[in-house]
Each structure stands twice: as C-alpha cells, then as structure tokens.
C-alpha cells in the first residue's frame, strides 16, 4: 500500500464502506425482527446486496486512487451475487412451502398465510411434477 493516497480517496472509500456496512447491518437486523421465515427472507436477499455493492465500489475506488490500477474482480463478485441470491432464496422458499403443506412448521404459516394453489388444474411445482412440455420437464426432452 502506498502512502500517497490523496485525502479525498480516503474520504470516498470510507463513506462507501460505512454505507455498505450500514446496509449489511440493516439486512441482518431484518433477519432478527421480521415475523416469520418468508418475511425474513427479504432482509438478506435485498438490503445486503446494496451493502456488498457499496463495499465493492469502495474497493474499486481504493485500488484506482491509491494504487493506480483498475480492478475488475469486484464486478465479477457482484455478478455472481446477483445470479446466486435469487436461487438460494427460491430453494429456501420451496422447502418452506413443502414443510407448510406437510404440517411441519411448528410456528404456523406466518402473517401471509398459506398460498392458494394456482388457478386451473395444476398445483405449484413444489407439490407436483412439471407437466410435459414445460421448462422443468426432463422426461419429454
């Protein structure tokens, strides 16, 4: 680390890191205080993405202003985060739906209740195999 970083760089980077930390903290606080599993899922999937984003921008700015190089790893970290966050949230939600239907959720369904089945003959994909010709149908391939 070179000691020649301008004071403005320190200021910008500090602001971004503090902003990032604040959002990560709010996301974690949401995990504690929201009423049931499905609401708690919203905290970590959203409030923390901007938290991490701000820290990553801080990292890019730091390397540019203090070391004089452009780093691109941060971009890749955010891409992987945006691709994986919805998938893990979806898996947690599906397990929750399954456990709700099985009556395994001891604390009840939470304020949103149990979801209605979709209109028409088909059920949700957690409870019923995908029909032929739909995206998840591997038998028809």
């Amino acid at each position, binding site marked *: 680390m070179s000691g020649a970083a301008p004071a403005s760089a320190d200021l910008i980077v500090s602001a971004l890191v503090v902003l990032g930390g604040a959002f990560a903290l709010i996301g974690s606080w949401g995990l504690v205080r929201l009423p049931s599993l499905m609401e708690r899922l919203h905290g970590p*999937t*959203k409030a923390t993405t901007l938290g991490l984003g701000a820290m990553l921008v801080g990292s890019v700015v730091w390397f540019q202003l203090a070391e004089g190089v452009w780093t691109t790893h941060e971009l890749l970290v955010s891409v992987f985060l945006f691709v994986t966050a919805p998938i893990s949230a979806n898996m947690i*939600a599906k397990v929750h739906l399954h456990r709700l239907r099985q009556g395994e959720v001891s604390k009840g369904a939470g304020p949103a209740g149990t*979801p209605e089945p979709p209109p028409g003959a088909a*059920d949700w994909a957690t409870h019923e195999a995908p029909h032929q010709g739909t995206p998840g149908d591997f038998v028809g391939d």
Partner: protein
Amino acid sequence: MMNRLLPHPGLSLLLVVMWVVMVSDLTFGTLFLGIVFGILVPIFTAPWWPERPPVRFVPALGYLGIVLWDIVVANFHVAAIILFKPNRNLKPAWLTIPLDLTSPEAITVFAGTISLTPGTVSSDISACGQYLLVHALHAPDPAGEIAKVKARYEARLKEIFR
C-alpha cells in the same frame, strides 16, 4: 456447421469477458485462453441446453440498467420497512402472477428480477408453467403490485426474448 461450433454465441462472449475480468489483465494470452474456454465450454454443455433462445441485446442492456436502478431503490425501500415499520402494520402477501412469457430462459430472468427488486421474492412456479408464486414483504394492494411487476419487467422481457 456454425451452430455446431458456436451453439450459444452469447454464452461464448460472456465466458470470454468473464475470463478477462477474472484475470483482471487484458493481454493477448488472457484473451486467447478466454476464447478457448468461450468455444469449448458451450460445446460441451450444449446437450443440456439444446435450444438457442433468440435474444435481442440492445433492449437487454436497457433492461439491465432499469433492474440495477431498481435494486438500489429496493434496498432503501426494504431498509425503511425493516427500520421503521412495526410488524403489526406490515401486510405480507402471496401473489399469483399469471405469466405471458413461455421460454424457460425468459421466465428464469423474470423470476430472478422479482427476487432482486422491491420487497418481493419469487417462491415457486406452477406445474403447468403458467403462474409464478411470489411472496411480497409489504403489499396492501396485491392486484396493483402484480400489474406493476408485469408492466415494468415482463413487458420488457417479451421484447427481449421473442
């Protein structure tokens, strides 16, 4: 012949760009290795992804901009709910969104967008592939919420995947 060699040109380009970004150094060697991966990986994974969805890249870039902006807005929105709205005033709801999109790639992008933006997480798809189950953190007006998501994201995705 071209289809056999480059089953997914978009994926190939993405792999080259990601390789260069990961090495964080644009030299001939990096680019060359990136191109080798960009050609080989789609060929070996093509059996699991047989169709090539038609994607229009210019509207896709506009969509990316809108989604990134909405993610920033969503973060402030959800942070405000977490900090200031007591649980008794919170109105969480399940939304059943009828899908106009039919291609698996388009539905995946739509569901992912919903999970990343204001107070909604996509939870399941119907077995017939025509409805999406979404959980909303705070939706006093579920019908309005559904209309908003369909107009803002699904209409644009229909332009991109067609």
